[in-house]
């Protein structure tokens, strides 16, 4: 864990540009941001402001064009594709707006997926998956396939999948975007618990100011630049 008071996530002069046709489009311009361990940050901003791009970079799904990105004092901006994959498997849990569960697998098998990358027995995987499902209140739904679950339940399965390998950071991209208010509040409360009780560092992109209120602080982006920050 972070023992020398350095932030868990350290971002310096981070840029990201895409080449579209003959044009180079810079989406993020010199971002500087620190996220301490145990933080719960909401990234807000209008569409196209670069918040999902920033989230993808923090989660190691993409590589920056320039700048420095450290997580737990390890530079991840210069890791190869395979190194990033291994890093993600050990460090990050992902939660998406559309859940992104495997439709052919049961809830339990979905949650077990990240554990396939770790050296453990089948029974150990099953045991851990069931613990994670119990944590999100779905132990009685472990044999159900995603299409047999409600949206809120599917998102809980996705949270269990994100948690099962005990990651340092949870990356959440509009986790309540497809849910009604009540279910969204339940999911956000669960995330808040994971942050406060289990110390999980959470970075969440959201359009919803109500969802952002569950975070400890909100960071606003506009046109690829951090514009302001507010603590809750």
């Amino acid at each position, binding site marked *: 864990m972070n023992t020398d008071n350095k932030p868990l996530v350290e971002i310096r002069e981070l840029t990201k540009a895409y080449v579209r046709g003959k044009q180079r489009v810079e989406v993020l311009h010199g971002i500087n941001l620190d996220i301490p361990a145990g933080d719960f940050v909401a990234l807000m901003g209008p569409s196209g402001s670069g918040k999902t791009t920033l989230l993808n970079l923090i989660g190691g799904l993409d590589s920056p064009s320039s700048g420095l990105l450290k997580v737990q004092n390890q530079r991840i901006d210069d890791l190869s594709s*395979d190194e990033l*994959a291994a890093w993600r498997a050990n460090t990050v849990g992902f939660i998406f707006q559309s859940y992104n569960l*495997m439709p*052919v697998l049961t809830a339990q098998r979905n949650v077990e997926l990240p554990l396939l990358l770790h050296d453990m027995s*089948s029974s150990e995987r099953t045991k851990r998956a069931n613990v994670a499902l119990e944590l999100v209140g779905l132990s009685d739904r472990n044999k159900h396939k995603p299409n047999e679950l409600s949206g809120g339940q599917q998102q809980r399965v996705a949270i269990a999948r994100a948690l099962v390998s005990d990651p340092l950071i949870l990356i959440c991209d509009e986790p309540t975007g497809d849910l009604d208010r009540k279910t969204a509040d339940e999911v956000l409360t669960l995330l808040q618990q994971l942050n406060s009780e289990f110390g999980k560092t959470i970075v969440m992109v959201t359009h919803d100011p109500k969802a952002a209120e569950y975070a400890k602080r909100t960071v606003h982006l506009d046109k690829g630049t951090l514009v302001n920050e507010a603590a809750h």
Partner: protein
Amino acid sequence: MKYFGLIWAGLFRKKLRTMLTLMSLWSAFVLLGLLQAVNSLFSGGADFLGANRMITQAKTSFTQPLPIRMMPQIEAVPGVARVSHSQFFGGQYQEGGSFFPQFAVNPQRLFDTYPEWTLSEDAKRNFVSTQDGAIVGKLLAEKYGWKVGDTVPLNSFIWTKADGNRTWEWKIVGIFDGRDSEWKKRTSLMYLNYGQFDEARNPRAKGLAGVFVVRMNDPNQSEKIAALIDEKFENSSDETKTQSEQEFQLGFARQLGDIGLIVNLITSAVFFSILFLTGVSMSQAVRERIPELAILKVLGFKDRTVMLLVLAEAFLLCFIGALTGMLSASLLTTTLPPEFPITTDSRVWIIAGISVIVLSLLIGVPPALRALRIKIVDALAGR
């Protein structure tokens, strides 16, 4: 092995499509199994034949009979133990009935050159002494319900009697069997006493033996003995060609055409169409699952691992189709009547195994490469 559940689930994501694809593969491999079994029979299925036996035929063609007077000359060649002669009779039993092989032979010499057949001594004596006698293989006798004493009329499409009649009547004097399981399976033939055959046939054909069956003392000397026999008749009006019995049988079978080429052409055509069908199905299945494969990468699966999962899925699909198809083909061959002694032997299974690997690679590599190249952020954004 820990990925098997994931591969299996991916394969049966669209059950109907997978089942239809599997049925196509199944039918292709049933066909492969049966056709290659036929091919196997024609190309190497005569392995059981005795290594110490050769056939001397006319150099031009085995359909050109050799005169029987050559027999002592062949028998005089050093290394030759015994010689008999055999003439294909080409008879049909009953109008529209099926053909079975019949050969007019010298009854005194048959068992010297074919010790693989077993017949009681009494029956052997009766065969020698009965001019119009015939001995029938056990399987053939069982098929037609024949027993010793029955008379079998055969209508030959080759040989006419001196009076122009094509129907020959043969009296069954014995029922022979094979000495082991391999030869027991091949008892669907009939031997006729050369006596009646030569006496009653058209005078112009009298004294012609057909081919000579040469039994050697030492099979290792076969090339040398064959050369000596053929040398003896070189530049005569009856030049000979002496070869192993197996080669002779294959040459006989090849009169029907190049079975191997025909079989391979049909098999290739079937697999070519299956390749497209299965390839399209597999590519479509992977295209639909791009976001799911991207999620595997999000979770930490390496590009190479995702590629191998897709390849493994293609292999599993082909393997299931091949295994069920080959088992069905094997089952079918066991239900065929004994006159079709085809089996899906190890050679056929090896061909099927190679086909599975080649087919898996051909249909699996394009979608696997696509899976390898998936960019997570593009796939999640639906690009």
